[in-house]
């Protein structure tokens, strides 16, 4: 690095920028603008003249978890319909405009939100804003288009879940574990419910959730923040507020789960034992300590559960740790894969012993804590490069954490986490908790594996 360049340049930038909307909060980048329009639309603009691409995201705060029984898949189906005709534009204009100018456009529906994303060069950006405003209020819902999109999303459901044995087992596990919780359903929904959707039910969904006061517009890239904000006010300001609050989703860590679930699927001849530990929502007071815990357990080259279970104790062919992250909670999952000769009770008992070993917290040293903080810093710095990544972080921070400013202070929050907080979080959610157990078996096991699979651990030592 050129000596002194970085702080110097930062100081120059500060001096050049003068007073900005973001200047009052030291963690918010200079030039950052965040405003809620009178109609309730939240707007965040982060100018970055060093990026060649403008990323625009519209976060509608409704996802599959807000659907009612009998309409599973409606949020995702509606996402498709948003690319349809409006009162002012033909169906294909939004996509064709992006293609013609070398841009990218897409959308995704999760359990918690539906997000429309655009990336395009700065000279084409204002047209994107006009089209986003247009479809927020002027979408035309027609029978013919709905019937076509119903076929398309059903094909999507088939390709993503029905025809992939791993997805099939995940969807089945989600349903079996979560029961009546709104997160029990995959966003692609059910074929039956998708088939039952009507223009009237889609219109009700649009009227309920697609309003400025249920949305967040995020723009990151080489734009003039003030001029862009004026443009946003002009285009989106006249759209009336309305709609309804989606139903509240219960947090995952206080939900009641079955103790154990068994599943079988058309998988290769290995059995997978899983221990799951629910976690609180990302805006909880333990969230930062859990963030560090995730980094320390499995964020780098060494996965501590795998290290102990596979390398030290030779209890499985493969093992590891996964973290699930949703708006109303998440989970830590330890998994272990073995050939189908071992009894389920033995597999779980072995995993519990490994959990006990981790619970001694020998891994929780000052040095490792510092390394975890630095790893988070590296990730944060890496995410600064791409406009789309930063737009995503801002949108997520507002909807998941209640404050878009928290997109910018993760490293600072992580820095404040202590060893004691990490230990307490581990104890509260993993060490002292009875895990949810899930066991997945292959439907068919070759005779040779069944008879001689027990020899594998001997050979692998």
């Amino acid at each position: 690095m050129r000596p002194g360049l970085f702080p110097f340049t930062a100081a120059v930038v500060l001096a050049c920028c003068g007073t900005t909307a973001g200047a009052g909060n030291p963690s918010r980048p200079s030039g950052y603008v965040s405003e809620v329009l009178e109609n309730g639309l939240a707007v965040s603009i982060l100018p970055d003249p060093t990026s060649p691409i403008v990323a625009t995201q519209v976060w509608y705060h409704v996802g599959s978890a807000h659907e009612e029984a009998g309409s599973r898949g409606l949020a995702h189906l509606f996402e498709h319909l948003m690319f349809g005709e409006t009162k002012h534009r033909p169906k294909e204009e939004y996509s064709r405009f992006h293609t013609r100018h070398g841009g990218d456009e897409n959308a995704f529906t999760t359990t918690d939100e539906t997000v429309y994303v655009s990336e395009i060069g700065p000279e084409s950006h204002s047209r994107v804003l006009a089209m986003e405003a247009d479809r927020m209020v002027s979408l035309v819902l027609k029978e013919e288009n709905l019937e076509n999109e119903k076929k398309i999303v059903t094909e999507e459901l088939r390709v993503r879940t029905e025809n992939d044995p791993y997805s099939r087992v995940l969807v089945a596990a989600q349903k079996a574990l979560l029961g009546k919780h709104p997160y029990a359903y995959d966003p692609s929904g059910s074929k039956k419910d998708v088939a039952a959707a009507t223009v009237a039910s889609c219109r009700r969904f649009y009227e309920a959730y697609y309003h400025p006061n249920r949305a967040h517009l995020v723009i990151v890239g080489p734009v003039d923040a003030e001029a862009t904000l004026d443009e946003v006010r002009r285009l989106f300001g006249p759209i009336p507020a309305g709609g309804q609050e989606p139903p509240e989703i219960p947090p995952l860590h206080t939900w009641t789960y079955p103790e154990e679930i068994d599943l079988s699927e058309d998988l290769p001849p290995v059995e997978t034992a899983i221990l799951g530990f629910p976690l609180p929502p990302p805006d909880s007071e333990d969230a930062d300590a859990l963030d560090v815990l995730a980094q320390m357990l499995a964020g780098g080259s060494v996965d501590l559960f795998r290290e102990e279970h596979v390398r030290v104790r030779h209890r499985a062919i493969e093992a590891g740790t996964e973290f699930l992250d949703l708006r109303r909670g998440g989970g830590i999952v330890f998994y272990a894969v073995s050939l189908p000769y071992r009894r389920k009770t033995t597999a779980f008992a072995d995993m519990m012993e490994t959990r006990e070993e981790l619970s001694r917290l020998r891994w929780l040293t000052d040095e490792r804590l510092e390394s975890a903080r630095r790893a988070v810093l590296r990730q944060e710095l890496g995410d600064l490069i791409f406009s789309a990544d930063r737009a995503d972080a801002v949108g997520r921070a507002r909807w998941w954490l209640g404050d878009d400013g928290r997109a910018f202070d993760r490293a600072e929050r992580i820095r404040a986490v202590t060893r004691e907080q990490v230990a307490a979080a581990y104890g509260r959610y993993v060490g002292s908790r009875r895990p949810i157990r899930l066991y997945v078996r292959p439907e068919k096991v070759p005779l040779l594996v069944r008879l001689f699979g027990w020899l594998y651990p001997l050979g692998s030592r």
Partner: protein
Amino acid sequence: MRSLHGTIAAAMLLLGGSCALGAASLEPPFAVQTWSVDEGTLGVLVEDHRTPLVTVRLEFPVGVWSPWARRSHAEEAFEIGLHDSAGALRARADALAAGLSLGMGVREARLAASCLEEDLPAVLELVRDVLDNRDLDRRELKRWRKESEISWESSQKDPSFRGNQAEARALFERDDPRRIPWEKPDRVETRTERLVMARDAIVRLPGRVIAFAGDLTREEAERAATGLLPRPAPLSPEDLGPVFRKVTSAGSRVHEVAERITRLTQVYFSLGRDSLPLGSPDYPAFVIADHVLGGHFYSRLTVALRHEGGETYGAGTSDYEDVVTGPYSLFTFTRRENAAATEAKLREALRLFHERGITEEERSDAIGSLRGRRLFDRQAAAQILGRFLWERRMGLPRGFSDEVVERASRLTLEEINRFIGRFYDPREFFLIRVEPPPGP
């Protein structure tokens, strides 16, 4: 050590500043600098001082296509380097908060590392030790062997894998390297002394690259590259380079192949042929034609198969993008009961495209799209470096990717349509169908 808060806040200020640091431009914002580290090693740097991060890429000119690599088990020899029997190297990577990975592509063995700029010296020390690791973890290799067997079984239930496999088998002879990714892998070698020998040979191959992108100067990069690797060997093994067989001719190829996977609720189609190599004089015309046929959300194929009748969720084209010929295909999938109608529509889309070519509006839109898309590759220094390394690996001139777009934009509609008349002749294509077994 620099304060975390200070570092990230400064980086955000720098990236987010509203003063004019330079308008977005089509010109690459990061220049590629090269120098000779020694007689067998190229040094490369793409500077980017916006954030205190450095990416390191080491590339060695051998990949899984190489007969020598296969004979020497070079893939596992190279990739196991991060695993010593005590797990100490991985622990060091984590202590440095560095991302570190080793892998082998079809043409290259590569080591990638990313770290905070201030940790670069320690990370390079680690890289040196990884490439010189003599205590390879034999137990890990045994697990890799088992995993490889399980992954192969798993791939046989994946319609996309099976389609690619059938395509490669239709186009290439059994011993052609282009079939390797789709055939049952060789058993993982666990004799560590053999692997150490192979790895040592890889690291010393002449024609290697030490590359950096990010927050370091040319002087720092040159210093970092010096002595990082052992002296290169004077010569490469004789059978290092891949030997490609002739692609089967359209006349001798099968016209239809059906692969069966139980429980599928859809049928997956691929209308395939041999691809156009990147160096072909027709490649610029191909780029336009391919974009119009299957390269975007309102391409000919998505309109015919998705937007008009809801036959599918996905339809498009897939190109090999290599200087040697590989498979090129038009693909889609649909529900089982709709298979015949969709196959007919797919064939009809190809027939019409071949017969009528593209319109002036389609040509103009394609050029706008291809030119605009170049901005996406200019967001990060690591992307510029990645493009440079790819062009070098392929033996293409620097700036090839941009040049193709410019050459394409100079072609007339007639020239493009003449190419379409030659390349998209339906008689050149064969059909792969991955489907459930017959019966209810």
